[in-house]
């Protein structure tokens, strides 16, 4: 009898131990899941904040472009600029001509980041000027087929521990060459062998891309043939990196 009792008690002890272990495992699993969930939510919020900040930067720099003498007609005597009236000759010298859907202008602009008197430090601002009256693209209902110009500029690039040219190469390798940079650069991080030489594992990219910028800014383009209605789009990217 006593042996039977002892066996029953032992079984009960084991079952209680298993029960406790199971509860502990479930508790650990739930805690890990909650931790992961909170981290992912937190990261999403951080990225949203960063993107909204860069969105503001893009809107601000677009506003600056609208009255900057590098792009618009400017009277140096009166220090008066024709706000929103872009000059074709200035665009030809600063940006790359875009013909219809040909994506080569985007990659050309990526490899030719100008340093102007405007531009945020440690970031690149891409811009696209579309001529809405040039080849009847608006009537056909496809704005992407409009002719125009694509360019890029930046301020001082100082905080890179890898060369800016290798970063641009890496960026170019991560975008779809058949699409424009405004839509194809949808990644949040890029990895390249060229950057790993500088001890960089991964480059995080934060970019603007909200609804306001998709609409663009209405402008006029002053050319020899007269004034054309156009649209200006800006797109700023800022980066940070993770070391190996």
């Amino acid at each position, binding site marked *: 009898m006593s042996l039977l009792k002892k066996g029953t008690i032992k079984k009960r002890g084991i079952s209680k131990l298993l029960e406790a272990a199971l509860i502990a495992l479930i508790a650990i699993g739930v805690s890990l899941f909650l931790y992961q969930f909170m981290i992912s939510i937190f990261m999403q919020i951080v990225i949203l904040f960063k993107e909204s900040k860069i969105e*503001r*930067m893009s809107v*601000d720099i677009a506003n600056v472009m609208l*009255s900057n*003498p590098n792009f618009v007609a400017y009277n140096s005597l009166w*220090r008066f600029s024709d706000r929103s009236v872009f000059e074709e000759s200035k665009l030809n010298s600063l940006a790359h001509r875009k013909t219809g859907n040909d994506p080569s202008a985007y990659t050309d602009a990526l490899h030719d980041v100008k340093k102007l008197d405007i531009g*945020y430090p440690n970031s690149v601002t891409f811009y696209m000027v579309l001529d809405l009256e040039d080849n009847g693209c608006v009537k056909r209902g496809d704005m992407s087929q409009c002719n125009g110009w694509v360019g890029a500029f930046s301020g001082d690039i100082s905080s890179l521990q890898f060369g800016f040219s290798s970063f641009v190469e890496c960026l170019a390798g991560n975008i779809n060459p058949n699409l424009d940079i405004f839509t194809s650069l949808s990644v949040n991080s890029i990895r390249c062998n060229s950057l790993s030489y500088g001890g960089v594992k991964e480059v995080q990219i934060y970019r603007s891309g909200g609804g306001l910028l998709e609409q663009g800014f209405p402008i006029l383009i002053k050319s020899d043939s007269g004034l054309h209605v156009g649209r200006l789009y800006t797109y700023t990217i800022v980066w940070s990196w993770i070391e190996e």
Partner: protein
Amino acid sequence: MKGQSKIPEIVGIIILFAVTVFFAAVILPKYMENLIVMLTYGSGEFVSRDMSGIITLLNATRHSEINYGFLSKEISYDITIKDRVLSVKPNSKVSYVAKLTGFDYIGIEVGNHVLNEVKGVLSFTYPPLKFNQ
């Protein structure tokens, strides 16, 4: 005799109640409001974002001067502009608020500056424009 000894107790309870109500209704909301302002609108991150945006937009307007008034009188700021990077360091008695420094990028060339605050208003005058002709 018994009734007399209870009077100070009742007065004490009333005073305690009045102090608690005063603290909860007047002092605590003011303190909380100040703290919330210091952690949000008054934080270095917020001020740097605002200031850098407004300074960048100066290039797109005909105005050459901005006066930025701060919401909280409890904080003053050390603001420096160097190489188009605007850094804001709040000075506050609350140590956590003082740690909430911020920086942001300016999109135009304005030179290097240390901005001084006068009576809660920070003035910035845009230097003469230099354009590439």
